[in-house]
């Protein structure tokens, strides 16, 4: 496919451009460079590595819980520590691993796939990363000083309210949400602006790569869902606890149930915020490893978008056991079943793509197939849980625990591992070991099913979640022991993955820009990409520009190389700035202080205002190079 008007042949001073770009996009050396970096590759990598560290921490917490539950009447961990463990595990996995990991992949890959130089707001990107990091440190500072939150990862009132949870534990949880939420909103905003306004010339809506579509839908969901958790955690919960408002106090007209409504109005879309980018990753992997354009692109995009919309109409199915009016429950049952249609369309499209393409069975495809298998199982129990009679029976049991681990690990973690193997050559310039990758897949797949499948049965037998032990007469011992064995196998799988990644980083086969013969633009950049991504910005001549014959490809000229500039965008500041870091630090200190005294908000907002003024102060007249 060629553009309507044939672009002329032009002379390009390739080497000169490259030298000038290297100079403009150079990082500051040393410590200062570490705190002032604003390139999307560096920040994306930081997001990914930091979130991975939190995955490991959350995984170790899960392992401790499994060890505690391995046999009846186990004295290993007491009830109080166990409460902190499951709360911190859930909080870490949702807020410090899954969302930031998806955001990190988006920050790294979206500008490359769109053929531009950076995200729309590089400094906001840096600010978001620092907020995320400080929030994680804050939570674990609490956990390590025996002040870890202990009211569950959704902190239902009245249990989490001032009356039943004195002390600072729940305050730390509520304020940690603020940190991670600011971070997610920053990334969502910059990705929306990037995807809407900074695509390569020629990249019409029908040519946007599937992963970018998924990040766009996910970002819009973040924009409209995250304010709800701000209302729930930061306004209802934290204000009730610190200054004595009455949002959840039934004695003064408040209503604890409203907290659940508002929390799940965020919490259910949150599942899709995690899951939708994973769908985009699966599409990217499938089309690359089958060497075929994705089957049913419009249907895929439409089902992503409709998942985004329907995702907001499901929240009450978390609350079927609260005694809501039947008409409402019926509506939410129907909506919960409807979302299976949108997911089903995508599964069928992937199967059709694989069927009609030439599947290359490398490690990423193994993880994709594992994802399809596990996610379909999780989806089936999801349809079961959407039926109110069954939901009432198994509510708050291990059946639900099994269901959401099948959906989240199957639906997000397996695609994510596939994505690591798929884009590792882009991140580091080297291939990951394929044989070890397949071993890694099988260990994780077996370990996962061994851990979580028995939980379905445990739930049906009546084992409720969040209990720290159980008597032997219940007969839950063998299945629990099996699940603990599975958890240890998952640990081995994790170790194999880390070993593979670390070894491949140093000794892996050199990848080159395009090791998989991929079709989208990230494969046009060097591996790892230079700070400016492309010497000449590419033009998207088709949906798969890299599958266009080289002589028909077009590049952009005339974008300035003497300072940081991208197309259809503002100038990116030439000076890597320290202000995002300072602003995040000041706001972070204020938010931490406010969990102890509300009045910390005043100096915090004042200081943040000063930070922002420093951030936005116009530094030099335009057109003059400093």
């Amino acid at each position, binding site marked *: 496919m060629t553009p309507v008007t*044939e672009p*002329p*042949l*032009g*002379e*390009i*001073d*390739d080497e000169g451009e490259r030298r000038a770009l290297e100079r403009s996009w150079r990082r500051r050396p040393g410590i200062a460079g570490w705190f002032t970096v604003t390139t999307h590759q560096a920040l994306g990598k930081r997001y990914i590595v930091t979130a991975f560290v939190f995955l490991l921490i959350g995984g170790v917490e899960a392992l401790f819980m499994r060890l505690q539950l391995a046999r009846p009447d186990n004295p290993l961990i007491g009830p109080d520590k166990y409460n902190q463990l499951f709360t911190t595990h859930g909080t870490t996995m949702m807020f410090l691993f899954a969302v930031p990991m998806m955001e990190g992949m988006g920050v790294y890959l979206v500008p490359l796939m769109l053929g531009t130089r950076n995200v*729309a*707001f590089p400094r*906001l990107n840096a600010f978001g990363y620092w907020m995320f990091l400080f929030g994680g440190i804050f939570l674990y500072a609490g956990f390590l000083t025996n002040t870890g939150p202990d009211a569950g990862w959704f902190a239902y009132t009245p249990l989490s309210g001032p009356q039943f949870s004195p002390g600072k534990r729940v305050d730390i949880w509520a304020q940690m949400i603020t940190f991670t939420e600011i971070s997610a*909103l920053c990334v969502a*905003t910059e990705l*929306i*602006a*990037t995807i*809407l*306004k*900074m695509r390569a*010339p020629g990249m019409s809506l029908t040519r946007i790569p599937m992963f970018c579509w998924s990040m766009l839908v996910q970002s819009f969901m973040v*924009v*409209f869902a*995250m*304010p*709800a958790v701000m*209302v729930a955690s930061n*306004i209802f919960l934290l*204000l009730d606890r610190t*200054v*004595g*408002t*009455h949002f959840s*106090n039934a004695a*003064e*007209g*408040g*209503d604890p149930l*409203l907290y659940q*409504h508002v929390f799940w109005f965020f919490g259910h879309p949150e599942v899709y915020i995690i899951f939708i980018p994973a769908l985009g990753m699966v599409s990217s992997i499938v089309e690359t490893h089958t060497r075929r354009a994705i089957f049913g692109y419009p249907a895929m995009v439409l089902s992503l978008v409709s998942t985004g919309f329907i995702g907001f109409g499901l929240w009450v199915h978390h609350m079927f056991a609260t005694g809501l009016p039947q008409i409402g429950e019926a509506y939410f049952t129907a909506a919960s079943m409807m979302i299976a249609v949108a997911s089903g369309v995508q599964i069928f499209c992937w199967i059709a793509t694989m069927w009609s393409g030439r599947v290359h069975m490398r490690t990423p495809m193994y993880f994709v197939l594992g994802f399809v298998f596990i996610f379909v199982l999780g989806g089936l129990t999801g349809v079961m849980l959407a039926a109110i009679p069954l939901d009432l029976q198994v509510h708050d049991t291990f059946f639900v625990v099994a269901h959401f681990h099948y959906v989240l690990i199957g639906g997000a973690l397996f695609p994510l591992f596939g994505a690591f193997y798929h884009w590792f050559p882009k991140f580091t310039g080297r291939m990951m070991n394929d044989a070890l990758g397949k071993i890694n897949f099988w260990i994780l797949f077996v370990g996962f099913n061994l851990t979580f499948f028995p939980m379905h049965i445990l739930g049906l037998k009546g084992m409720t979640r969040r209990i720290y032990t159980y008597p032997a007469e219940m007969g839950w011992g063998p299945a629990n022991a099996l699940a603990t064995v599975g958890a240890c196998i998952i640990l081995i799988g994790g170790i194999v993955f880390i070993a593979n990644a670390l070894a491949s980083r140093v000794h892996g086969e050199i990848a080159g820009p395009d090791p998989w013969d991929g079709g989208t633009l990230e494969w046009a950049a060097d591996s790892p990409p230079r700070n400016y991504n492309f010497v*000449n910005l590419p*033009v998207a001549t088709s949906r798969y520009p890299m599958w266009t014959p080289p002589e*028909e*490809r*077009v*590049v*952009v*000229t*005339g*974008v300035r190389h003497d300072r940081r500039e991208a197309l*259809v*965008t*503002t*100038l990116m500041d030439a000076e890597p700035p320290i202000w995002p870091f300072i602003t995040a630090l000041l706001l972070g200190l204020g938010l931490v202080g406010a969990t102890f005294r509300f009045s910390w908000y005043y100096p915090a*907002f004042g200081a943040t*205002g000063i930070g*922002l003024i420093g951030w*936005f102060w*116009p530094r030099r*007249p*335009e057109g003059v190079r400093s």
Partner: protein
Amino acid sequence: MIRRRTLDVSGLPDIDVSSQEPIWWGQICLCCIEGAMFCILIACYFYFRLSLDMWPPPGTQLPHVAIPTVTLILAIVSCLGSYRASEGAKKNERGAMLRGLLLNLALGCAFLILRGYAWYTLNFNWASDVHGSTVWTILGLHTMDATADLLFTAVLIVALIFGRTGRSMRLAVHVDSVVWYFLVLIWIPLYIVIYWAPRFVGAPA
């Protein structure tokens, strides 16, 4: 030197003071975020309202409407200042930008001071009951947003006085006006909810 098919964009301007700029879109996203939050708070207000027989609860006065109505008019008029400033920014007229921003700042500050006075005369606070908690939270959050934007407006005025009139400066003036429109626009339903809803929806005799 290599020869390739090229698309030359060197003729495009560095910055366009218009909705073409990503920062304008980013600002719209932030308005959506704030707007979503206020919509949820409105929903919560009526959720609480519907679960109680008396609203506001006994002993709580109905919030007076006179001064808040004047402040609403002030806020709407202050948008004229923002509009002038952003038109000045598009046409690169420093005088129009300065006058527009000053009008915006002056009326905005008057708006906040009068609101503060009306707020001070309420006979309930955030800890009185759930009605007080909700009304104080809505007022507090909107005041925080408005204060932040007026602070930003003041900074822009200072920068303009110091002679910064480059394209990125003008873009900032343009985007600042977008935020102020949003804050005034969202205040209209919030004003109706706080001051008129208790009078219309099952007011106590």
